[in-house]
């Protein structure tokens, strides 16, 4: 493995460089010629350090940090290719040969990282690829926690915890992490508040209900759930209980009667699915004697859409969503709202990306 003796390197923040032999100014991306005297560790090494440099200790991460000296090898590792986009033949990249049996997606998306990277940063910085990979992995871990806890996050939070020493590279790291979240976990990192750069983590896979919490032996009754959501939708987003039972009876599902697939449905739709947040079951206001109605729950709204459900219902009966004109209108409106929200957030994201990279950070990387 040839060593590059003297290379023009764009110095990164002190936090990154301080542990390596090379010296340099703090913060700003300035070209500096340095003596490259670090030992030639493997390029784009696919093996991760045995104790991961989780040095960005905050209240969240981690509580007993591992030996940060490990960062030396990582930071000092020469990456011969000048541009970050050149794909190191490392298994760390998603586009590694054994994996990409399908042609393009992973490798092209990886390649696309390059141009967008150089657009995001004013110079073609050749920073060690494996450090970035490491930070991407850390950010993914962080986002996965947020997904599990169903908490939103903000750019500020990410910068203060996982990416404290890599603020300049937020756009690259964030975009790669988001992509991994999407392609590997099917989770979308969705911007919900452009002014705040607030994000939520949502599944892209539709209904995630898996029936694991209820009766062990039966197969999960997603089908019945879809029907229920459909009935509610067709009733104008709010369905009286009587109507629900009438609709379900068409499928042979009756309250109080054990169904050979679905079991006893009353418990399922009024308790289990309410607990799972797929439906809301509430008393009709001012009803006496008390009558009840069903609505979509927050999880249904998060995991699917009115249009999706309508399309499914329509196809199930060999028809077209437009056969349900009222619901179709409503679904269109809902769809439009979602699209608008997405456009708004994308616009702001682009503005933000170009804005953030031209900012020279102040020396924010004081040692802990």
């Amino acid at each position, binding site marked *: 493995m040839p060593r590059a003796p003297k290379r023009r390197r764009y110095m990164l923040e002190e936090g990154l460089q301080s542990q390596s032999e090379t010296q340099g100014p703090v913060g700003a991306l300035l070209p500096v010629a340095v003596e490259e005297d670090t030992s030639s560790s493997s390029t784009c090494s*696919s093996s*991760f*350090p045995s*104790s*991961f440099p*989780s040095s960005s200790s905050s*209240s*969240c*991460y*981690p*509580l*007993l*940090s*591992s030996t940060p000296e490990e960062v030396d090898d990582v930071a000092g590792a020469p990456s011969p290719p000048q541009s970050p986009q050149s794909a190191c033949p490392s*298994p*760390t990249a*998603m*586009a590694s040969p054994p*994996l*990409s*049996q*399908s042609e393009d*997606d*992973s490798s092209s*998306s990886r390649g696309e990282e390059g141009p967008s990277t150089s657009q995001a940063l004013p110079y073609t910085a050749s920073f060690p690829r494996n450090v970035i*990979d*490491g930070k*991407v*992995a*850390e950010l*993914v*871990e962080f986002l*996965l*926690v947020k*997904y*599990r*806890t*169903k908490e939103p996050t903000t750019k500020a939070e990410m910068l203060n915890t996982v990416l404290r020493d890599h603020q300049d590279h937020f756009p690259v790291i964030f975009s790669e992490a988001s992509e*991994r979240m999407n*392609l*590997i*976990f*099917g*989770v979308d990192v969705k911007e919900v508040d452009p002014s705040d750069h607030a994000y939520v983590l949502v*599944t*892209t*896979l*539709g*209904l*995630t209900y*898996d*029936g*694991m*919490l209820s009766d*062990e032996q039966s*197969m*999960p009754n997603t089908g019945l759930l*879809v029907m229920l959501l459909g009935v509610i939708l067709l009733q104008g987003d709010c369905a009286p209980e009587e109507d629900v039972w009438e609709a379900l009876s068409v499928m042979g599902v009756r309250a109080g009667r054990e169904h050979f697939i679905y079991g006893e449905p009353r418990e399922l739709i009024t308790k289990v699915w309410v607990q799972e947040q797929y439906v809301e079951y509430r008393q009709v206001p001012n009803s006496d004697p008390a009558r009840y109605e069903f609505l979509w729950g927050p999880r249904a709204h998060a995991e699917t859409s009115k249009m999706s*459900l309508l399309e*499914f219902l329509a196809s199930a009966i060999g028809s077209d969503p437009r056969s349900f004109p009222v619901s179709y209108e409503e679904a269109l409106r809902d769809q439009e709202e979602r699209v608008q929200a997405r456009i708004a957030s994308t616009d702001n994201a682009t503005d933000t990306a170009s804005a953030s990279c031209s900012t020279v950070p102040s020396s924010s990387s004081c040692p802990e």
Partner: protein
Amino acid sequence: MQGSTRRVGIMTDVHRRFLQLLMTHGVLEEWDVKRLQKHCYKVHDCNATVEKLEDFINNINSVLESLYIEIKKGVTEDDGRPIYALVNLATTSVSKMASDFAENELDLFRKALELIIDSETGFASSTNILNLVDQLKGKKMRKKEAEQVLQKFVQHKWLVEKEGEFTLHCRAILEMEQYIRETHPDAVKVCDLCHGLLIQGQSCETCGIKMHLPCVAKYFQSNSEPRCPHCNDYWPHEIPEVFDPEKEREAGISKSNKKPLRSRQH
């Protein structure tokens, strides 16, 4: 309706859903994992043959490698049930718990962990743990509060309680093995057979080596004269049965035992 199927490398929505759900459940027994896998196929690709679980998991792990994450398989220490969890390989700390617990609570966990590792049986008594309450970092915690925190650990599947004593949940062992080995290199015990981390097990009274109960079960299976693999002395303990998933399901024992593992985390 259930999201468009995108194929990237080997990752399809089947795999993505599997990962999402495994993550949500935290830790799952093998029987549930197989059910989960079938469910994911049914939702996205019902015509495809369900891939053998081992291969399915290995394929996913090859993609997860770049993120220092893997689906790790373990075995419960008390009765040898195979379990699976999504584990972060690079994290050498209790950071997985960090999102749910305050600083002093995490310190309580570390103290309990230390007592468990140092103990002979792999169990630490509630009293001994609570006596350490004054040494905790962060906000001051009273014993009454600490009792509740311990219960919280049980609920979140980090500890298990048995008659007033606490040991590590199989999930904690699976997820924190690396961390435990690194922070307690001298005190940590290791199984003489599988060389894995050992919290509970049987020991040879002559030479002191230890073995996991399921490892003992497998090693001495149908051996009428069990002898220590190290010093050859007679093995004095009762040899447990090898875990048989088929037998379990028939007996319906699984119903009551499985519940603790299968609760949703959040």
